[in-house]
Structure formats: C-alpha cells, structure tokens
C-alpha cells in the first residue's frame, strides 16, 4: 500500500478566504485523485491530477474554485478558493496502488 501524507489535518477558515491542502505520496504515481465528503454524505470525486497536464474535473467542480497543482509524481495540492460554509467538508487525496484506491489522512475543513 502507499503511504499518503496530507496536511493540514484540519483548519477553520473565514468565508471568502482560500486554503491549500497538500498531499505527499511515498512513491511515484501517475494520477492522484481528490475527493470531498460533505457532512453526512458519501465521497465525491472532485478531480484527477495528472503530472504535466491540467487536472480533469468532474461535473459540478471547476478549476477556478478548486485549482490543483501537480508539480511532480509524488506531490499535489488542492486549493479551495473563496470559501463559503458549503465548502465545509473532509477533503481526501488518494492514489491507486495494486488496483486498490488508498487515501491520505484527510483534511477536515470548517468555514465560518
């Protein structure tokens, strides 16, 4: 399995501000995936981050709101921009290893 480090672990932010979440993997991977889990909801894929190209966003998610960087094969960031209380969620990065999806430790975001 992959070891995936994610930070911050949690944060409380004011509306209108932005937060950048970092994800570091202990091995090189082609794709990294960012998920969101709103309170009481299941996981929803935000986007797929590929090294060397723009991220691919799922329906309902746009680059202006959730810009993603993927500077190398072991690292990615997700920014939640111009936050509102509706952005309060757990954000998870993940990678596929041996045909299984493994998750980072998660970021609990609360927006006031």
């Amino acid at each position, binding site marked *: *399995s992959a070891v995936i480090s994610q930070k911050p672990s949690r944060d409380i932010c004011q509306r209108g501000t932005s937060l950048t979440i970092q994800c570091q993997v202990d091995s090189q991977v082609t*794709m990294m*995936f960012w998920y969101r889990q709103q309170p009481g*909801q*299941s*996981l*929803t*894929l935000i986007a*797929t981050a590929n090294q060397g190209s723009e991220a691919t966003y799922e329906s309902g998610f746009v680059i202006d709101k959730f810009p993603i960087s993927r500077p190398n094969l072991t690292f990615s960031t997700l920014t939640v921009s111009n936050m509102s209380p509706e952005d309060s969620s*757990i954000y*998870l990065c993940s990678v*596929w290893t041996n*045909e*299984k*999806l*493994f*998750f*980072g*430790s*998660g*970021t*609990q975001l609360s927006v006031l």
Partner: protein
Amino acid sequence: EDKVVQSPLSLVVHEGDTVTLNCSYEVTNFRSLLWYKQEKKAPTFLFMLTSSGIEKKSGRLSSILDKKELFSILNITATQTGDSAIYLCAVDVYGNKLVFGAGTILRVKS
C-alpha cells in the same frame, strides 16, 4: 447515471452479534467493487471484489460479490466495539473512478 446503494443506512448491535451490510449497484461499466471502513476521516481499504461467488475473508470480516444480481455483502461476525465505523461500498466504473455509496453507520454497543 451510475448508482451505488447501501443498506441499512445505520444499525446498532451488541458486541458478539453478526451483521450483514448490503451494497447494490447499477453502473454502465463494472471493473471492481471495493469496501472501506471509515472511522475518522480517511477510509481504510478492506476488500476488492472482481469475480462473482468468490468470498474474500480477513479475520472476522468477509465479503462476496454477485455480478448477476448486482450486489455485494459485507459480513462481520462476533462484532466488537472497535468495529464501530462507517462502512463504504464503491464501484470502479471507469479509468479508476470510484462511485461511492452513502455508507452504513455501524455502532457496536458493549
């Protein structure tokens, strides 16, 4: 639209009970079905199933897939308080994209 439905949404049992969690799916392209346990923030991997009728087992947990009837079950025997968690079912539909069910909240009382 790809859909994964889990039942029950929640249940409360006593230590030592056996529980069965259900997952049904309707997807356009099935590659595999995965089960996860979520205790705090990060889901942890339990099983991946690709073939019908082959039971995967790990300790007190086991799971089986029925591709004809489009469902899977996760069994937990001799439950312990440490089994209290949200259990997530997900289907890999395309290009490593997982569609998740809403989860089953399990609470095991001592």
